[in-house]
């Protein structure tokens, strides 16, 4: 996945912090669970930011994250596989 790609989740969605994880509710598609960083990254995928920009935002938010870019790509690929990108 190119770092210039702007991932956009193609349905309305919301993410909430739950007891043991973060839960994303994707309209008419279903539910996914995330860790805190994953929830933050998925929440950025509204079409306005590139993979690189989301990676930078993740690095700012989670300074201890080892490889933010890889994390963003990994989540983007999972969401794509789940059919959540157009």
């Amino acid at each position, binding site marked *: 996945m190119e770092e210039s790609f702007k991932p956009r989740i193609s349905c*309305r969605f*919301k993410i*909430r912090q*739950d*007891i*043991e994880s973060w*839960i994303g*509710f994707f*309209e*008419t598609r279903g*539910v996914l669970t995330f860790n805190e960083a994953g929830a933050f990254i998925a929440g950025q995928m509204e079409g306005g930011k590139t993979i690189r920009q989301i990676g930078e935002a993740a690095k700012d938010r989670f300074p201890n994250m080892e490889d933010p870019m890889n994390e963003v790509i990994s989540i983007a690929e999972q969401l794509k596989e789940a059919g959540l990108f157009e």
Partner: protein
Amino acid sequence: MNELVTLKSPLSVNFEVTPVCDLSCKFCFNAEMGCSSVEHPSFDQVVAILKELKRAEVFEVRLFGGEFFTYPEWARVIEIADSMDFFLSFVSNGTHINREVVRKMREHRIKTGAISLHGPESIYENITQVPGSFEAAISGVRSCLEGGLSISILYTLTKENLPFLFKTCKWLRENGVGIDEINAGRLTPYGKAKSDWEKNRLSFDDYLSAFSQMERIREELGVLANLGDAFPLCLLPEKYHGFVIGCWQGTGFGHIDHMGNVRSCSIAKGSYGNILETPLTEIWTKKLAHFRSLKWLPEKCRKCDSFCGGGCSASQYGGGMYAPDEFIAQGGQNGRIL
């Protein structure tokens, strides 16, 4: 041992905005309340319940009844629920839905809904006991489809309508009612269906007949047909496992009645608490511990590697708020575990 996960609140709820309904279905699970004789709750109470659901961060509200569209201020309910940013859907008998109702729903981001249709015209109206209700329900389904809503049909299985599941879908197709999905529901011993249960209940073989029809509906009509409830998979031929949607009550799904009482299932009665008195998160995390422990299920279910929830917890006569599936309780259909 299997157990269910505890979330802080349901992800999705059926919110019984009003207990009032203008049909009189013979098997209605809600009939103990007297659907046609009770009063609508106040708008303030409806809003208060929505606020509590919002506070608990519930994602989705399925507008439910009774019959939601009999509520005089249904349009204001949709407006305010949308302003609270819920994902909205509805469950209805369809008889009040027209183009204007659909327009209002679309305006407030409703994309999907479920409409009850329990058979062909004569069977359906014998169940609802309201002449003209079939045509009104079909008109409601058509209005939704023409307005761009995705509709699933709810078909509660009874002895009377069981032979007509496939035929009803075929009729819909032949009459230009292009549904994508039909969910057959299990008849459960609550409300009106409770009386004369031994005579009315469906046998295991009746369900096999329903699954066989669902298979034909998928293959011959291209409509996604499922059992919309849970069923013990260990009793069911493997080829039908993919036809069982299952149930996520008590974890991701909850039911809120018109007074604010919380249940994990829309059908079973009782209350874990009232969200107008106690925060939903407190009720949801503390009051369902025994249910989620699954200690009320047979050990074979609690140890099962292919855990299906133990079937439908509202299917057993006298089961209260939850009990093992009626077929598991019978020893696995005469001990026949497949």
